[in-house]
């Protein structure tokens, strides 16, 4: 693009800024009615337009140019904010694409003789960039939530003096097993417990991977001197495990958490009563 054309373009844009902005605002506000206020949109748009003009003056032609650094920053902020507020992708991009309405309004004036095509292309780029940052922000939110869920879904609770339990709910994959194992082993040390109960009532299916993860956790707990019981094995799970051919070996399993607790208390009681004077 010849720099002369850019100069004319910028001058026209500055002169006709009000026309462009009015049409832009109108188009965006029509779509975003009730989601955001006119005032917010106006502020946002004047920020974008200023940054756009600055970039054009600095000789920027495509959005990836260094001249548009500030513009990209503003767009990224806007779309990340919208992603967090739960705007749809359409509602996020429309704020930028509506700028085209302003440019069309500009060309429909007879006395304006300027080619806005390069600018239209730039607006498309802006829109795509908005989309990209919106998607990236959403991805970030999702992985954040997944991480929180990972933490949330693996509590280690103290059931009794010397007895801790992990009620597992949902799918047990490698990442969760790692978290569970770490938490369980740490809690064993912190509470000085000798019994750990892993309750799988909330695990919908025990396949070989889940079983392998369970076995590893049990072995690790045993290495630390704790006795580990797996409880909450429902009839259909028991039949599935047998059909699959998984061997739990000498690992203690119980049908319910209550059974496992009684077992642990009985074992504990023996040692505790030995120390308590009659």
């Amino acid at each position, binding site marked *: 693009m010849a720099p002369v054309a850019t100069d004319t373009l910028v001058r026209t844009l500055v002169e006709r800024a009000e026309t462009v902005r009015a049409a832009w605002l109108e188009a965006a506000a029509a779509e975003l009615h009730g989601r955001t206020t006119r005032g917010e949109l106006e502020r946002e748009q004047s920020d974008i337009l200023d940054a756009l003009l600055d970039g054009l003056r600095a000789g920027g032609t495509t959005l990836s140019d260094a001249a548009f650094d500030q513009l990209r920053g503003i767009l990224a902020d806007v779309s990340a904010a919208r992603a967090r507020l739960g705007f749809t992708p359409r509602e996020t991009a429309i704020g930028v694409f509506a700028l085209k309405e302003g440019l069309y309004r500009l060309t429909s004036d007879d006395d304006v003789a300027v080619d806005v095509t390069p600018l239209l292309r730039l607006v498309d780029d802006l829109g795509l960039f908005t989309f990209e940052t919106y998607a990236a922000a959403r991805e970030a939110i999702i992985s954040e939530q997944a991480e929180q869920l990972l933490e949330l879904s693996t509590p280690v609770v103290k059931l009794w003096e010397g007895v801790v339990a992990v009620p597992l709910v949902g799918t047990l994959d490698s990442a969760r097993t790692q978290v569970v194992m770490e938490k369980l082993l740490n809690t064993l040390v912190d509470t000085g417990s000798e019994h750990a109960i892993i309750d799988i009532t909330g695990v919908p299916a025990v396949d070989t991977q889940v079983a392998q993860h369970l076995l590893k956790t049990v072995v690790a707990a045993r290495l630390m001197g704790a006795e580990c019981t797996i409880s909450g094995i429902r009839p*259909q799970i028991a039949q*599935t495990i047998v059909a699959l051919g998984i061997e739990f070996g000498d690992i203690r399993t119980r049908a319910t958490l209550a059974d496992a607790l009684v077992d642990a208390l009985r074992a504990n009681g023996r040692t505790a009563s030995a120390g308590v004077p009659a």
Partner: protein
Amino acid sequence: MTAATSETAERLPVRADSDVVKVRQLVRSLAQQARLSLVDQTKLVTAASELARNTLVYGGGGEAEVELVSDGARTGVRAVFSDEGPGIPDLDLALTDGWTSGSGLGLGLSGSRRLVQHFAIDTAPGVGTRVEIATWSR
């Protein structure tokens, strides 16, 4: 299997761990629709989980196709797992309990066969693997 009329099959990609979960959920919901007993449901879901993971881990990703099937008197669920991975060079060995080419327990493929009523495997080295399973209501 007997000539069965199939309703619309659902295809799911198996490209990541989360896809295995999706396959499992789909199989479970169809198994409930087919009125399989709780034990059969759990067995079928577990087999689907094993095979989907095999598709992912050993086949390098592929596709799962799950459908509700009916032969008039009974309804059932059929699932097909296919990949275009390295295939299985020695099927007899792969179906041996406890043998694994990876780091698992070596029970996934052989165990799955015992979990379902119908089990068919079609594989060739370098071409890929296709496993079909089905369980019918009693």
